[in-house]
């Protein structure tokens, strides 16, 4: 480092000594150090940050970073059957084209004039989600499904002025951790049992657990374990009889073929839009949505930004702005206040592009493809000795649990052997759902060709026999 000469960094134009000099003169200082005189000496860092020598040329930087990244093996290089919250779907080229546009990529919080396009695109995102969900209000995306569910739950507690939440026990365990951290200690979370014969909610347990303290009932459809919950109407009517709200977490990619939760009584619907045009990015592509009907009382409890379409002084011109209701009535549940901030807007714009590209036919065909391919995989897997598909009598979307308990190997061992065959097997559930012991959550989408599924079957047969 010491031998290196000083450099003018391409990211820092005013490092040029003559410019620096001019600016210092203007300020009336001789040394930039003088600008720091308000920081007392004892607060100044006296040491030297121990950082690697910089890679000043872009070429060297590229060599270096690509070198590290090349150590990864991707889901394009192997066949992956991993899902459980992050899903491999095809990303249309236009989605990438749009979210890499400099304007969208580097804009932030401009006004609805110079950033009209940002408001416009996010309004359209919300509008297309609204069509998919058959709901009139959709927020500008939040961080992920976990945050969306947390906020949906908080909204329910504010709307009902109650503090107890019933959560189905097949919710994603990681998501539950997020909700617990966000909502504790003010909310009381109780689990609602699943009938492990069917993978669906145990209605009897729901009836027993729900009370006039219950703010909301949260379940996911399709569930984390892939089951389609077909008792939605019953669940929502039990919920509504107790003046609680029905909150449903859903996979928007299922809604080309499945009945949207609003049709079976959901008051608040939430979920993740990663599948709608975002690459998995090792879990970096998530964004959460929240949708409701357009009732003032409910809309007022959104902490999120909501963009509305408005007129301008020029006739026929569309403008946009923040729906900025005043909070007028205070209730004690104001304990459940929330915050907003930078979240995942770019993924919202991208999901809009995705929905516009697929259109009604595309969404339906996509859903159908996923149903067919996952059913094919289930059918083929169940022919392997010792392998069972759990909840086989219940219908599934995209994901399903494969029970390996009757095979001689643990899931972890099987997956290790599959990796060698360039296959990422299903997600090991033995820690998340100890009651299912050696089981794995498999995910099959439109990206899986028949040959990929057949390769999995062959691989498993080799491993288990």
């Amino acid at each position, binding site marked *: 480092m010491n031998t290196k000469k000083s450099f003018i960094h391409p990211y820092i134009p005013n490092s040029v000594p003559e410019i620096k000099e001019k600016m210092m003169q203007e300020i009336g200082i001789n040394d930039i150090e003088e600008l720091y005189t308000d920081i007392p000496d004892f607060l100044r860092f006296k040491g030297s940050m121990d950082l690697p020598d910089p890679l000043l040329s872009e070429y060297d930087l590229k060599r270096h970073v690509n070198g590290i990244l090349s150590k990864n093996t991707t889901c394009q290089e192997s066949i992956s059957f991993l899902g459980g919250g992050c899903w491999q779907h095809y990303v249309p080229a236009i989605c990438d084209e749009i979210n890499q546009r400099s304007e969208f990529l580097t804009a932030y919080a401009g006004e609805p004039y110079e950033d009209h396009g940002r408001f416009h695109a996010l309004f359209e995102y919300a509008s297309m989600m609204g069509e998919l969900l058959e709901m009139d209000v959709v927020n500008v995306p939040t961080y992920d499904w976990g945050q969306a569910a947390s906020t949906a739950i908080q909204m329910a507690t504010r709307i009902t002025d109650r503090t107890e939440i019933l959560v189905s026990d097949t919710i994603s365990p990681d998501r539950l951790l997020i909700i617990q*951290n966000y909502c504790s200690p003010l909310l009381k979370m109780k689990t609602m049992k699943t009938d492990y014969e069917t993978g669906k909610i145990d209605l009897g347990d729901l009836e027993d657990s729900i009370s006039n303290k219950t703010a909301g009932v949260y379940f996911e459809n399709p569930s984390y374990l892939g089951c389609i919950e077909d008792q939605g109407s019953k669940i929502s009517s039990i919920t509504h009889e107790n003046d609680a709200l029905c909150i449903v977490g859903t996979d928007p990619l299922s809604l080309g073929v499945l009945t949207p939760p609003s049709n079976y009584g959901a008051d608040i619907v939430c979920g993740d839009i990663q599948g709608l045009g975002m690459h998995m990015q090792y879990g970096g592509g998530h964004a959460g949505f929240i949708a409701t009907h357009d009732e003032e009382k409910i809309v007022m409890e959104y902490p999120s930004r909501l963009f509305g379409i408005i007129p301008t002084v020029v006739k026929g011109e569309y403008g946009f702005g923040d729906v900025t209701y005043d909070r007028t009535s205070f209730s004690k549940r104001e304990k459940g206040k929330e915050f907003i901030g930078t979240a995942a807007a770019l993924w919202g714009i991208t999901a809009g592009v995705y929905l516009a590209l697929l259109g009604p036919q595309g969404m339906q065909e996509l859903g159908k493809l996923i149903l067919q391919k996952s059913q094919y995989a289930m059918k083929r897997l169940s022919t392997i000795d010792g392998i069972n598909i759990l909840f086989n009598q219940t219908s599934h979307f995209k994901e399903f649990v494969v029970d390996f308990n009757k095979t001689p190997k643990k899931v972890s061992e099987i997956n290790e052997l599959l990796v060698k065959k360039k296959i990422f097997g299903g997600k090991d559930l033995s820690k998340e759902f100890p009651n299912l012991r050696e089981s794995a959550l498999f995910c099959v989408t439109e990206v899986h060709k028949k040959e990929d599924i057949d390769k999995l079957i062959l691989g498993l047969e080799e491993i288990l026999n």
Partner: protein
Amino acid sequence: MSPVKNMKVRNFHQAKWDEPIIFELGSKGERGILLPEIENEIEAVIGDGFSKIPKHMIREQVPCLPEISQMQVLKHYLRLSQETLGADLNVDIGQGTCTMKYSPKINEIFAISPKITELHPSQPICTVQGILEIFYKTDLFLREISGLDQFTLQPASGSQAILTMSSIIKAFHDYNGENTQRDEIITTIFSHPSDAAAPAVQGYKIIDIYPNQEGLPDLEALKEAISDRTAGLLITNPEDTGIYNPYIKEFTKMIHEAGGLCGYDQANANGVLGIARAKEADFDMCFFNLHKTFSSPHGCGGPSAGALGVKKELIKFLPVPLVRYNGSEYLFDYNVSHTIGKVRSYYGVVPAVLKAYSWIMSLGREGLEEVSRIAVLNNNYLLKKVLEINGTSAPYAKGHHRIEQVRYSWNKLTEETGITTEDITNRMVDFGFHMWSSHHPFIVPQPFTLEPTESYSKAEIDEYIAGLAKVAEEAHSNPEIVKNAPHRSVVHKLITDSLDDPDKWAITWRSYLKKWKNDRI
């Protein structure tokens, strides 16, 4: 007239495509993309896939999405992108507090590499050693920059990092059996509003400190705020005024003596990299916004990342998993004894972490220090020039230098001309500039906050100043042109009444059709 001689504002006009709403485009039957055909063999075995689904769970009607061909979708969104003024195109110094610096394009190239985009977060760790190395080393870099002992890269934003700090404070007092009694978080009014809002989510009572005449929270005020109920302090330094609080170590000392923890919101770190650190000021925790200081782009409002660091004693409370290196392999450590659990799914906003890593690697120690020095130089140059414009002021700390940003006021101009910050914001657009309007709370009247970062050249800063000077001059000579601005932007003056009228607000197109259809005849 203008404090910058010979510097002209641009004869700018933004792209205006008069673009319809996407539902007004296309026609029935058009397709934007086709999906793979189902293989015959599968269809032969499975059928249409619907037979297993209960009838009432099958969607009756396809969703009313638009039907548009591919090029037309592309064109629509490209036009919308042109109707957005990103930091790559304007001199984005008007969005103070947000550090709108250059986001290097090479880092975007890394972020779209399949080697990162096509990784599933549950893959076996032997297949993700590259990305784990990036995580691990970014943690090490941030330790150097802050002086703290361990980072988590999980929080997806500054606000979520604040929430995580609040969770850790809660866990810490739980651990000490003191949680029921310690229920107050102290912050300052010039810290980020989320420093108050995020802990409130978890039931904390919020005490915020207003500034003294010098614009700083003072020790007397802190004394008034501290009690045996104090759980912790969440504070920015420098605050959004750009004034460095020289008493910060006394703050942390008093909080520690009262039994609380101190969390440092480093949203405004861009002026102090390698200059002043969390450790020397005795903070227990701190976080950096990777999308501000560390160059990851803002993406129209995310995805972003808040990297949170803690002292050794608090590692046991961090969210899981942490990334470790055992000498030969990078791995996940879920064995965090008193973890708060999780704040975001999986490991955080991976592309933002990757970009921050690359940015640090491109600068090194000297480079980071130069970033801060030039950011501070730029800011003080700007300060000098802005104050030469009639009608401006920089409340507090007269005669002092500022760190990386300044909260200014147009109050004098407003008193003289009736032209407000909001008016000026709208007029600046006509010259291709952005000036942010949200500076809650409004204790500085008619506020505007400028942060020039290290990225903008002197010529660009001069151009921005010329824009401010031009609008300030117009406020006197032609106030109507300012009041009715913008004139050369994408849209004209908005009629905003309906945004808070439940009968008229329309958050989706379907809602608009229901509520406005009759009005549109």
